[in-house]
């Protein structure tokens, strides 16, 4: 069995003249929660839609749950749960009716689990979806995504618009489910703090390209701020990310004899994200 749930190599997708994905490389190990960071319009949603088979990639290769796919098959789709940023349920259907509608499409549908999730998430089962608040609708979408016990969970900025309590409940349920079932989750967001609390590894995408990828601690060890004389140039092995933010292997940071007055600062994930996600960041900054 392949150890990776997702592997994207050089995946490309254009919308007219716009390159939404410009050779995205991404790998997510089984059972991990992967934080997919990027600004609005960076390519997060398109990447997730390509993985879900909603959008076809123009090029590159996609491996999903150990299968190399040209087009995401129905069988594969049954093993993937998806929560999008906005929910478009049939307004006349209640949570119970939605469950009844969706259940026959998934052989692995667990009705009991669905009811439990509705209860845990505090979603009224018999109220029409049009009458539910935005947060409740998102929780309903999570319940629908988790009830078939998917092997992979794709979350596309699901907590946008949720209040902090609802967001915390949502994230806790995701973490609990992943831990309990060993589900892989790809959690896309532009809220760094949220991703930091949920994910074990992160990737930052900007303008359709992956800028950097790795576990959070490793990233913080690799990417640091260097305060030095303007004329100072770090030795080979260091790559400038943006302004005074540099990237190098942790050993190199430790082994380099820094001149007097030079200050090396560790950065938060948010600062690392800001350094990579700015549009003026040089292309050479990717590790």
């Amino acid at each position, binding site marked *: 069995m392949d150890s990776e749930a997702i592997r994207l190599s050089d995946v490309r997708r254009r919308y007219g003249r716009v390159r939404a994905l410009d050779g995205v490389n991404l790998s997510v190990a089984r059972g991990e929660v992967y934080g997919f960071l990027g600004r609005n319009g960076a390519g997060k949603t398109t990447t997730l839609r390509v993985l879900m088979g909603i959008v*076809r990639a123009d090029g590159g290769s996609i491996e999903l749950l150990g299968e190399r796919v040209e087009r995401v098959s129905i069988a594969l*789709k049954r093993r993937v749960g998806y929560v999008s940023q906005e929910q478009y349920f049939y307004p006349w259907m209640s949570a119970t009716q939605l469950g009844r509608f969706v259940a026959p499409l998934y052989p692995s549908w667990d009705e009991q689990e669905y009811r439990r999730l509705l209860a845990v998430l505090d979603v009224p089962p018999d109220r029409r979806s049009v009458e539910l608040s935005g947060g409740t609708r998102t929780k309903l979408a999570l319940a629908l995504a988790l009830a078939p016990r998917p092997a992979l969970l794709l979350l596309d900025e699901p907590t946008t618009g949720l209040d902090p309590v609802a967001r915390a409940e949502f994230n806790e349920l995701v973490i609990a489910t992943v831990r309990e079932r060993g589900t892989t989750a790809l959690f896309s967001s532009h809220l760094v703090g949220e991703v930091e609390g949920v994910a074990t590894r992160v990737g930052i995408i900007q303008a359709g390209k992956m800028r950097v990828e790795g576990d959070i601690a490793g990233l913080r060890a690799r990417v640091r701020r260097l305060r030095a004389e303007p004329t100072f140039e770090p030795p080979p092995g260091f790559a400038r990310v943006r302004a005074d933010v540099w990237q190098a292997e942790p050993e190199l940071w430790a082994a380099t004899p820094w001149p007097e007055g030079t200050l090396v600062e560790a950065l938060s994930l948010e600062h690392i994200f800001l350094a990579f996600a700015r549009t003026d960041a040089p292309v050479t900054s990717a590790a």
Partner: protein
Amino acid sequence: MSYVLIRKELREHGWVIALALLLGALALLGMLEQSEQTGGRFVALVGHARSFGLLIAALLANRLFAREYSGKTQLFLEILPLGRARVFWTKWLLGLGLVAIATLGAWYGSLRWIRRSEVLDWRGALAVLGCVALFNLTGWAYAAMAGMLGRYRYLAWLAGPLLAYTVHDAAGIPIEELPAFRLLGEDVAMARPQVGALALVQAGSLALVCAGAGMLLATAGSGAIASTLARRMTTRERVFIVSASITGLALLTALESKPEPPPFELTEGEIVADGLARVAVMPTGELDAARASELARVISRDADTLIDRLGVSAQPRVFVLPQQGLDRTVMQRAVLSGAQGIVLRVAPDAPRPQLRALVLHSLVADVTLQRALKEDRHVLLDGLSAYWAVRDDPAARERLWSRAAASAAPLSAERLQRWAETSEQLGSCLADASAFAVFATLEGALGQSALWTLLRGLFSRPHDDVRVLFEPSVAQRLQRAGLSWSRLAALSERARLAARARNAAVLALRPSYRASVSASATRDRGRTVAIALAGSPQYFALYQVLLPWTPGVDGMSRFDVRKARAVLPLSPPRGSRVLVALEVEDATLDCPVRVLARRVDVP
């Protein structure tokens, strides 16, 4: 197919579908009731398929496709393990099934209704079912495709009938002859379908193309096309559509075909109908039945051959009523208000070539909706009529040449293009002869093939609406044929002078005339118009008062004069104009020759 989706659709739209089917059934009932008086058999079913069948298809497409996209619930379906193609085909087949149920129900209901009073064989009834079902399938496929066009679906639904109407109006193709609609013809309504394989293939192909287009819209660009089309219209789009609709409606109104009056009913005299023309000449004391019949045959042959040569669609009715007491050169055409036809009142001894030319003239004028009379093609119309009437008579042709040669005024391009004015100056005898000369010259210059190509373009039935503005002018047509007005005038004048040389001896016998006309106002005699003519002991004056609202010169009064000077028997109002023409019977030319024509202002 996805039964899960079918269940969802039926649950979501079931009540609307049931209501639509109920209304459809009630409408069918009403139509069946009415059809007993209007046509019987499957008339109601055919009418129902054309109206409610299409409406139900549009409604279903709106509910099954358009609402899914406009409500963005399609995005919810896309994250489910279904697939776009499967979603589309499930909905398409569900819609088809519902349309089939409606069709079957309507057909069965109609059959039961008809069988209460008639015996119908199953074969005919099943053939009707097949035709109506295929029509409804095509209608559904089109409606479904339109449904996939999102915010433009209404335009597509409108475009279908609009296109059919335009084709019907512009090309004259009846709607019943259009693809798919051919399946609902009168033969089908009468339970005797005679639908050919081509009609079936056309409808089937149309349905396939529409279904394919719908599928393409659903899946192409990862469904992005359909999703984009489903968005709400922008203000700019709304303004554009409203403007385009108004323009389209205005255009349609302009293109609207005018109803034609029925053909004139011939009831008297022996009716000759050897070809397309139906001709009758009323026998009188001076024109016995045999001669009347012979004349009718000649006129009929003239008309048929000319219709054939011009390639026009015409079935003229001609009625000639000889009347004693009329001057032999006076020929009057009756104005028919409620019918189409050529009804002429002539003297029993009216000259045959002129009578025949007048019939042909009237025929072509009618075919061209009188446009040939008002434009610069008038000279060619007069020439064609005169020429065709004497086409087999060399002596008559030479007589026309001699008349043309007698005219003192030379032919110029301007005079040819302003033929109404030239005719007024020359009088009908010399004008017709001059037109004949122009036409004969044209024949010589172009040759038969190019001549008739030109004439077919000139004298075809024109559009009776704004499209006439886009037709090429006579000058353009002449240019295409390698001629111009000035060249034609020069050639005609040269031929006329040659004819004058040929007939110099005969023409020298003609006396010379001098004429004058003047208007005056005196206190004791009021306003008068005085005429004078020297060179002939008797002559006649034709006159007409022209008031500002007088549409044209028509129906001039005749005043016979036997003295050199005279005053016209009229009291024209002050400030009016009087058209006065003085003519003498020219024994040499055997026709009345106009010596003078003038429009005089009354003081």
